[in-house]
């Protein structure tokens, strides 16, 4: 137990150690997080009127980002499946980063939910009266918390074993890994079901939303991981092979093609039918009743996704610069499409036909940026800790001079 506290203390101290660029990055993220916290405090004082949300558009940037991030968290499974199910060892050394990313991202999701609540001081009520199994939000609470705990356990166990210099016992983490694979799919399905089950919003009330969520998550998540792995490769001593990146590229290829196919299905269903239920889709893609706010966004997103998919499919993306461009296009395109392209249009027009558009306020944007910065802060710390620990440079033996045990790498 004492050694576990020593491990935690060492992790904490290690997160403040680094060269000037590390500190500059962390200071920048801290400043952005603090300004985000400031804006959230303003929201606590004045109420949600500091955001751009209204009775007509009652969910906005917070829930949009939440939806997107749940997808990213689920995508950690995309690293785990090739290694544990298909024994593809290219990704073997980088699975841990996927799981650490999942932890940081899930914490961001939970923060986005908290800042969206009108009465966060009453969040304990969810433990006192829990409308499970009828309310999908209760399923989501269980799914996200469980996923966080699973990933914390798996990564924490592997890191602690590496710190202690001993081989991890398969029984303590492999079953959890398989549970996490299934759980990753379920967290995003449950989040999709939040929207799908509402008959009063025909834009959401479609069976294709859940598969689209998964397809776009499994494209955007690995894309982000490709980018972060290159940063890890550049700034730390951890070895990231090109084969790992190319395996991820293959995963994104498949996911993007499925995503675009499902997009095509959705567009056909909405615009060929052309019934009154398609008002929200018409607002999103073509404008409605003189309001065009989201039209440039969605077409940009679609172009980005198509170009990104094309680049990914062509051999040019085997080269890293093109691959990175494709990843950025994918990440941004899916962020717009899932956030602004899914959450906001369902509220415009309202179920009674009123057209009120939504623009996030500066305070709202700052809170979102603050949470993103905080998540990146957590992820940077996680990488900062895990690379030396897994690489055998920071172990209990080296820190406290205990009898040397055979040095082992990460036991995955």
């Amino acid at each position: 137990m004492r050694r576990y506290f020593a491990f935690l203390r060492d992790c904490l101290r290690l997160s403040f150690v680094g060269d000037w660029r590390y500190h500059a990055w962390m200071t920048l993220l801290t400043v952005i997080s603090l300004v985000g916290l400031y804006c959230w405090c303003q929201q606590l004082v004045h109420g949600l009127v500091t955001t751009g949300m209204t009775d007509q558009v009652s969910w906005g940037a917070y829930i949009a980002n939440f939806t997107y991030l749940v997808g990213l968290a689920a995508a950690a499974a995309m690293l785990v499946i090739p290694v544990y199910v298909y024994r593809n060892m290219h990704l073997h050394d980088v699975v841990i980063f996927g799981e650490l990313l999942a932890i940081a991202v899930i914490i961001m999701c939970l923060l986005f939910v908290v800042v969206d609540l009108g009465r966060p001081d009453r969040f304990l009520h969810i433990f006192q009266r829990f409308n499970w199994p009828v309310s999908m939000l209760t399923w989501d609470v269980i799914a996200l918390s469980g996923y966080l705990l699973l990933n914390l356990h798996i990564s924490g166990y592997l890191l602690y074993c590496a710190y202690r210099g001993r081989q991890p016992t398969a029984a303590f983490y492999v079953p959890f890994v398989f549970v996490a694979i299934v759980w990753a799919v379920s967290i995003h399905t449950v989040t999709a079901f939040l929207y799908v089950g509402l008959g009063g919003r025909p834009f959401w009330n479609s069976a294709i939303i859940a598969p689209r969520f998964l397809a776009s998550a499994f494209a955007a998540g690995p894309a982000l991981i490709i980018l972060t792995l290159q940063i890890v490769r550049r700034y730390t001593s951890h070895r990231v092979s090109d084969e790992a990146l190319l395996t991820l590229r293959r995963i994104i290829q498949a996911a993007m093609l499925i995503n675009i196919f499902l997009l095509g299905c959705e567009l056909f269903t909405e615009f060929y039918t052309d019934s009154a239920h398609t008002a929200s889709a018409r607002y999103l893609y073509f404008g409605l009743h003189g309001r065009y706010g989201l039209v440039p966004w969605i077409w940009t997103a679609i172009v980005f996704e198509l170009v990104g998919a094309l680049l990914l499919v062509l051999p040019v993306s085997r080269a890293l610069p093109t691959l990175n461009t494709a990843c950025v296009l994918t990440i941004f395109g899916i962020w717009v499409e899932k956030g602004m392209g899914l959450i906001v249009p369902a509220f415009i027009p309202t179920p009674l036909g009123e057209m009120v558009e939504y623009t996030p306020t500066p305070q709202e944007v700052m809170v979102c940026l603050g949470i993103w910065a905080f998540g990146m802060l957590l992820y940077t710390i996680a990488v900062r800790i895990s690379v030396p620990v897994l690489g055998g440079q920071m172990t209990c033996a080296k820190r406290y001079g205990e009898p040397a045990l055979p040095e082992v790498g990460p036991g995955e």
Partner: protein
Amino acid sequence: MSKPYELGGGDVADRQGPGLTRRGFLRKGAAAMAGVTAVAGALSPLRELKRRDLPTLERLLQKHYKEMTPDDKQAVLKRIAEEVERRFGVRPTVTDPPPLPGVEYVYALNVSRCVGCRKCVHACVRENNPSRQPEIQYIRVLKMQKGSIDVETSDHHYDPPLVPEHDSYYLPVQCHQCAKPPCVKVCPVEATWQEPDGITVIDYDWCIGCRYCEAACPYWARRFNFAEPTIPRGELNPQMAYLSNRPRMRGVMEKCTFCLHRVRAGRLPACVEVCPTGSRKFGNVLDPDSEVRYILEQKRVYVLKEEVGTLPRMFYYFDERGSRYHEPIAPVRPREPEGPSEGGGQRS
């Protein structure tokens, strides 16, 4: 044996070995102080919170309405009355009327008679103490064009000199107290539920403000307090009930409750009483002599958005010509008189 892993590495000027030096202490202290100060700066808007915004122990321990004992309820009602008196300078009567046995409410609205004057909207506002700024109104009157029953073609913001307007009809929409309410289904903390007499209510002290119910309602009937509600003192209605019209706080949902504090005492809702044309009808559908029973049995009734399957309690019905009956009917154009024609019956 490799060297002990240095945690304080990277600084060229300081290689005095492991352990805490004065310089190290000062550096770390300065950084820690700066961090704490920065967090305090970030939290500084909280100093604008007023005393009444801060959660008290009483409020934190307050149970859900359904779990309150009668003593709990008495204490809560007393607390609410004191808070209202402090805020508004008016001593209210805060009650908690139970549902009447053998009663289920139904609302009927005569589309032939509604002229779209919006007096129901404002009478409701006077009765139920919603916020005036930002404006919350439970009832929304839709101006519909003749030929369409699709509410998505409606105009909410009509403002002609006189109503009713040419070739329009008016549909006021408020909470329909559905028998299969989607809002109740989705609430994660059970802050909203349907009472035995059919009214869907909200425990304002339990709601966490996630607004899932607002997204779920097909009739856009639920409202959220985005800011601290403001009610002018002189306009406060002091006859209040826990589940209906006591003043709410920011961050919670509210909606039409069929004036629960009135109907459970046997009175009509405020919107029914004020309607100048008598388009609004309300009563106990289980009573075979009630007017709503007569309407449901005899009139041509329908509901909005039947396809979403919510089984609303609000029915719309129509009688005869509608709101244009003050205009003379266009004269019948004279037609050829019937009778034997010269051609000898060529018509088939």
